[in-house]
């Protein structure tokens, strides 16, 4: 493998990892607060559709982003309403949101744009496109650092930088702020948080809102950066890969990034080396590569690669003592 193909592969890895990373970090807030969320995929899909639709109508990527975040937060609040306020089953609620998003994006897309569930193709100024960082060209000649900087670090979209910026930010919020401490506490032992006079409900709602915001951005990335518009079912199960990455990373922000990069790399690798025989292994079916993130997660869950212990109060609605 030449250096050039390696660079391209890594660049592709970053690109496909961004939506995974945003969605996984989104799930991290919710699940750390004790609200399981398997509706990440649905919120991402709804966000992607909204971003594509609004950007197509207004011609503004920023308005698209804003609308996507609003819609994703609205869906997150539905999840919160069902699972926090009404103490419903969180898995059931997540499943419901996935279906509502999957159905309504197609129906509304067809009704409004009549292009078989797509939104109109967007011009570049209604999208978030790659940004050349300063000195990208000047540094290209420097060995090692130069190509990495100009090919991989530079030229990503604003949302990609945002996604990777969210990793240290999330770490800081979770482990260095009062909100983060309480968030983690409410996911482990809500009764203790309640005893300290802090509202479990409000804390969990805030966590769920964070989830909504980030899934909205993830959807926007899909519709306005990776593609030029919304295509039906465009998340293609990425919300579940993100969930797998989150579990793989044991609900920690920085490992989440590495897990997303790993799964992204597998994806990029599978696309690039479809049907090509690898030395020593032979032809690996592309389906095997596609299934690998799920297989790895199952193996992890089986306890063969460390142990994934979810937040202790995850999935359990909190009933205040009366």
């Amino acid at each position, binding site marked *: 493998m030449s250096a050039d193909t390696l660079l391209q592969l890594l660049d592709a890895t970053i690109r496909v990892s961004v939506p995974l990373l945003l969605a996984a970090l989104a799930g991290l807030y919710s699940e750390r607060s004790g609200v399981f969320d398997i509706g990440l995929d649905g919120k991402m899909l709804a966000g992607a559709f909204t971003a594509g639709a609004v950007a197509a109508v207004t011609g503004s990527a920023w308005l698209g982003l804003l609308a996507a975040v609003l819609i994703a937060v609205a869906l997150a609040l539905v999840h919160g309403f069902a699972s926090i306020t009404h*103490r419903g089953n969180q898995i059931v609620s997540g499943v419901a949101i996935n279906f509502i998003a999957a159905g309504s994006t197609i*129906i509304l897309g067809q*009704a409004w744009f009549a292009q078989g569930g797509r939104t109109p193709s967007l011009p570049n100024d209604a999208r978030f496109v790659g940004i050349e960082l300063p000195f990208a060209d000047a540094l290209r000649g420097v060995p090692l650092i130069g190509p990495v900087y100009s090919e991989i670090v530079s030229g990503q979209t604003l949302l990609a930088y945002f996604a990777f910026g969210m990793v240290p930010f999330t770490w800081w919020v979770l482990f260095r702020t009062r909100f983060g401490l309480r968030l983690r506490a409410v996911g482990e032992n809500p009764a203790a948080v309640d005893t300290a006079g802090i509202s479990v409900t409000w804390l969990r709602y805030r966590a769920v809102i964070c989830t909504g915001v980030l899934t909205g951005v993830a959807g926007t990335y899909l519709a306005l950066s990776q593609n030029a518009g919304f295509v039906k079912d465009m998340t293609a199960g990425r919300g579940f890969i993100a969930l797998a990455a989150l579990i793989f990373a044991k609900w920690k922000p920085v490992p989440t990034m590495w897990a997303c990069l790993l799964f992204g790399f597998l994806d990029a690798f599978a696309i690039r080396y479809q049907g090509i025989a690898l030395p020593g292994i032979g032809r690996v079916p592309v389906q095997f590569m596609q299934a690998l993130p799920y297989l790895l997660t199952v193996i992890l869950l089986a306890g063969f690669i460390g142990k994934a212990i979810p937040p202790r109060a995850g999935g359990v609605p909190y009933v205040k003592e*009366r």
Partner: protein
Amino acid sequence: MSTPYAKLPRWADYGLIPLLNLLVAFLVAGLVVLIVGENPLEAAGILVEGAFGRGQYIAYTLYYATNFIFTGLAVAVAFHGGLFNIGGEGQAYIAGLGVALVALSFDATFPWWVNFPLAILASAAMGAAWALIPAYLQARRGSHIVITTIMFNFIAASVMVYLLVDVLKPPEAMGPQTRGFLEGAQLPKLGWVLELFGATVRSTPFNISFLLALLMAVAVWALIWRTKLGYEIRTYGFSPKAARYAGIGDVRTIMVTMLISGALAGMMALNPIMGSEHRVQLDFVTGAGFVGIAVALMGRSHPAGIVPAAILFGALYQGGAELAFEMPAISRDMIVIIQGLVILFAGALEHMFRPWVQTALASLAPRTAGLEPAKAEGR
């Protein structure tokens, strides 16, 4: 931990509240139809007409319902054991392999009535096998069954795509599918039953796996409410701690429950493969595994509720196809929304109307709301 909700009379618990939930789900769905710019009442009319208007339509409705009875029962059995089997989709998909194995091996040798029981066993075994690993991991390793079954859905999809594209596809076939089955692996149709009632049914895929589905509904009822095993499953589902204290083994209960659930989901593969298409195609499950969740929630995990709920969803599928024909703006994806709304209102938000119903009942007839005895105790 007691539920924070007071007890309601049975008719309210099993009749009124599910009906209210369903009503709200359909009202919201009607809202979506309005947004799309069509008349919801007119749409509903076309849907009902398209599902039950002719013998032909009824046969299709029951054909789809067959799938959903199997998957609904699968989800319900797991629910009784306190487990959420979200993997019905993958279990049914892999079970297609079992059906294919029997059909492709014996369709020239045996008549259908030999192959059918063999295929039932094979599909149930494959479905159960695909549920086995998640069940084992939950029972022994404590890994969350929801997550593992989701992962297994995706793995199943990859496995089947690989097998259909690279292994099972005969060289002359166009799409990724097996060769067509001979007569020995084609199930008899049931259209003539409807014709007895005076309906005209030309060619429909409605076949005898519907009877198998009904049989399974009865079997599940008997299992859950009339056997020791069913009692153990329910006890474990109600309180794992109490079950352990009563000497009911965790590992055994989880494994057995999931194997039964997987087997039921697996049998769903018989209906489209042997009953209708006579070959295994890509994505033949088409979301039936997930519809099973909605069906189980709506039917309150009781076969007597699951069968009508499955028929309702069958009607939505069939009527939805007709609706898409009449109102192009409302494609069949409308059903996915309705499915989601039913899951939301009948599942996650099932208690939303409970306080209201309670207050309403209390003011109308205090005795039925169970308030009177409580007061008596207070004195």
